[in-house]
């Protein structure tokens, strides 16, 4: 079903870009447009209270589509129906948007504390590395029709460059936190 020697890896690269690059960029755009309609505000508030769900949406999306059975089924679907490709990409993008919402959402006050955000990203990175590791070292029967080199490359894309994207996110959050304006100041009396 996959003639292309690097079909799986290409899917993986697209998925990673969709979740970890496109999703955050969409949310960033919404934030720059200052999109703060009551609906967005309510959504942000809900997500802020349930950040673990957003975390699960991002990491769950990654895990779900690479469960062998699901992967197999999705590949078959996209061969039969061209629209399915679009649906799958949209689902990935949605996962990415939800995942980055607590960190970059349009309502500044409802964003996660940058240091909590670092933990959020670091734990997601560990989960992503685990999945990448499982794919890399999976035996050939697990993903039928995928060449070992292709499967390894796919797993490694998730594991290593994927981890670097999370790391970049962590460093950006740290920078944001270090540059944040201090809140009310009490000027010291001269000693």
């Amino acid at each position: 079903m996959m003639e292309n020697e690097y079909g799986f890896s290409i899917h993986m690269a697209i998925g990673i870009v969709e979740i970890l690059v496109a999703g955050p960029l969409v949310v960033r755009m919404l934030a720059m447009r200052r999109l703060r309609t009551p609906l967005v505000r309510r959504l942000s508030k809900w997500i802020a209270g349930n950040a673990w769900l957003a975390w699960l949406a991002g990491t769950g999306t990654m895990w779900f589509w690479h469960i062998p059975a699901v992967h197999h089924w999705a590949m078959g679907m996209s061969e039969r129906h061209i629209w399915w490709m679009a649906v799958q990409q949209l689902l990935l993008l949605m996962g990415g948007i939800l995942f980055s919402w607590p960190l970059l959402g349009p309502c500044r006050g409802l964003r996660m504390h940058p240091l909590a955000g670092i933990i959020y990203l670091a734990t997601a990175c560990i989960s992503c590395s685990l999945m990448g590791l499982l794919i890399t070292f999976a035996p050939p029967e697990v993903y039928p029709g995928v060449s070992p080199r292709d499967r390894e490359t796919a797993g490694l894309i998730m594991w290593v460059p994927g981890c670097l994207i999370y790391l970049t996110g962590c460093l950006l959050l740290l920078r944001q936190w270090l540059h944040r304006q201090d809140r009310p100041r009490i000027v010291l009396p001269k000693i």
Partner: protein
Amino acid sequence: MISNTTPAPEQPIPGLGISSPQGLLQWISSVDHKQIGILYLWLSVLFLLLGGASILLVRTQLILPDNHFLAPEAYDQLFTMHGTTMIFFVVTPAIFGFSTYLVPLMIGANDMAFPRLNAFSFWITFFGGLLLYFSFLAGGAPDAGWFNYAPLNEYNYSSRPGIGYYCAGLLLGGTGTVSASINLIVTILYNRVPAMGLRRLPLFVWMVLINSFLVLASFPALNAALAMLLLDRQLHAHFFNMVGGGSSLLWQHLFWLFGHPEVYILILPVFGIYSEIFPVFSRRPIYGYGTLVGSGIAIALLAFGVWVHHMFATGLGNTVNGFFAASSLLIGVPTGIKIFNWLATMHGGSIRFTVPMLFAIAFLIEFTIGGLSGISFAIVPIDWQLTDTYYVVAHLHFVFIGGSLFGLLAGLFYWLPKISGRRPDDRLSRWFFWSFVIGFNLTFLIQHALGAMGMPRRVYTYPDLPGWAICNQLSTIGGYVMGASVILLVFIIVKCVRSGAPAGNDPWDANTLEWTTASPPPLRNFTSVIPVTSERAFRDFKRPEDAAGASVQRQMIRRSERNAAMMWLLIGTEAIFFLSLLMAYVYFGSNPGFTVTPSALLNWRSTGIFSVLLWASSFGYWRAEQRFRLKNTQLSQMWLRVTIGLALAFLAGQAKEYYHLVHEHHLTLSSGIFGTAFFTLTGFHGLHVLVGVLLMVLLLVRMNSKPAVLSPQVMRAVGIYWHFVDAVWVVIFSVVYVAPHVLKTAI
């Protein structure tokens, strides 16, 4: 700085001398973070002498080609004990000693968040070390190297009990390290003076914070691997035994999943020590506070993306090697940033070449050499050529000694006046510095050449090839110089503690809070803390004209959340432990596959029924907690009893299932790889349920006897643990029982 009128230091408590029985008891029973920190440091010195003595015997064996000073078995035991001791019982306790001693002082706290847990951490590490050394008396020390590769660590290859002691000693030491890390994180987050925002944390404290998270993320992998190895050796399980369907490569994966982060665990806090020393002795503010913190975080995260580079020679394939070669080269970036930060801090400063500063400068040179040889290993063909030669030995010693140990020595000479209240003899200290640095370079610089010439490590002797004997002789002489200087170091410390010149409170004109209190600090560290205006608060206080515009901010720190925070950290590290076991299960299920069909053996319906009981118990606990908060102790106790009952019902169900599997299907831990993986995974979960039940029984007893003392925070902490245990079962149940049933194969 120091005048003749400096008063003699006052001991915080009279009669601390260990010659009197009262003093000894005082040390053993202490929960004071300063005393425990000092105990950690002495532990480290004790094991430094033992680990050093064992390696001097090894170097003596290598002084001549074809030497028979040591038998091969003795040689194997000695180099294994040397590596294990130095990493787990010298550098680690020294790092935790400094952390335990200094963190509360640097953040203006009077003790750690959990003082008794602190004492527990030390003593369990201490007994772990004793247990490791007890192996010599019990019939032979471990002999498979500090990373203890399978299958050499298996019973068939090493039938003496040494490796069992290795497992037990490291499990105890690891438990101490994890509990100390949890304690340090909670202390840093919740015990700071309210004016010290995280952006004003001294860099040493920042590095300890990052490092403690790294410990929590990496040690569970080692603990899981050690538990598996113990099961293999004692109960004939098959985790790392190829004949029984296990995988010896799995050991390397689990070990390096821990081991590479461990390398950074041994250096990150030391980077923090350097970041304190460079500004003080250059009389300049630290250059790039933010980048130093950021590169610390980057190093911690990258640790999990590079560990496969220890396994380039295991035949994982070019694809895998290529990715990890690239990521390993990247490690040079954050480390390089730090080096340049320190250079920039020194640049233009008025440098004082004190002993701590000498060690710090020597570090810059030696660590850069070690870093560069490390980068060369990222290139796969070079790694293939040089792996398991003396080039690796040279590299790792330049990093461990030139990086970690130099920093710890710099820290020792920097803080010894604070810890003892007295100054070490300056002339002797300089002698020590020069002899140690010269001895170190003589020993290890030449080993790069030996490695390039192809001399393999861990072989008890070598043939008389051109150049090998003279290089080894120089290296051994260097080793003796280092050994002699370590004796000098011990003499310097003892002399300083006994009769050093009084140091005064602030002998270095330093920046951080620990120098504001007396030397040695009184039992209660601070009666009042100076305003914290930046990361060098004490300097701002001494020179207000330099600190124009500095301000104090008050933070909200909710100390009541400490119990819950501790429990969250604990279950975070437990989650990784279970993930390691689960990964092993999944790995064996597919690679090369179980020889039995799990869906035929396991009945997911009957297990599902008692699983529901366990999940229902989470609801019961939630009700109990709610009732307790509403001060309805009667109902709360009722719900607790219901929860305990449900948990016991689950355990009974599991026991029945085990009985069925063992008697009907003859499935045991040793019957095959499925039994091994299944019983380990579900058994460890069952143990956690049992611990949860015990905790709840304790709560019940507490509620009966003194309900007023029991705080809702403790109830909440136990609840977090209990919900976690139930959540883990959701994952195990789906992977082990439901998935094979749905997919008709093991995952």
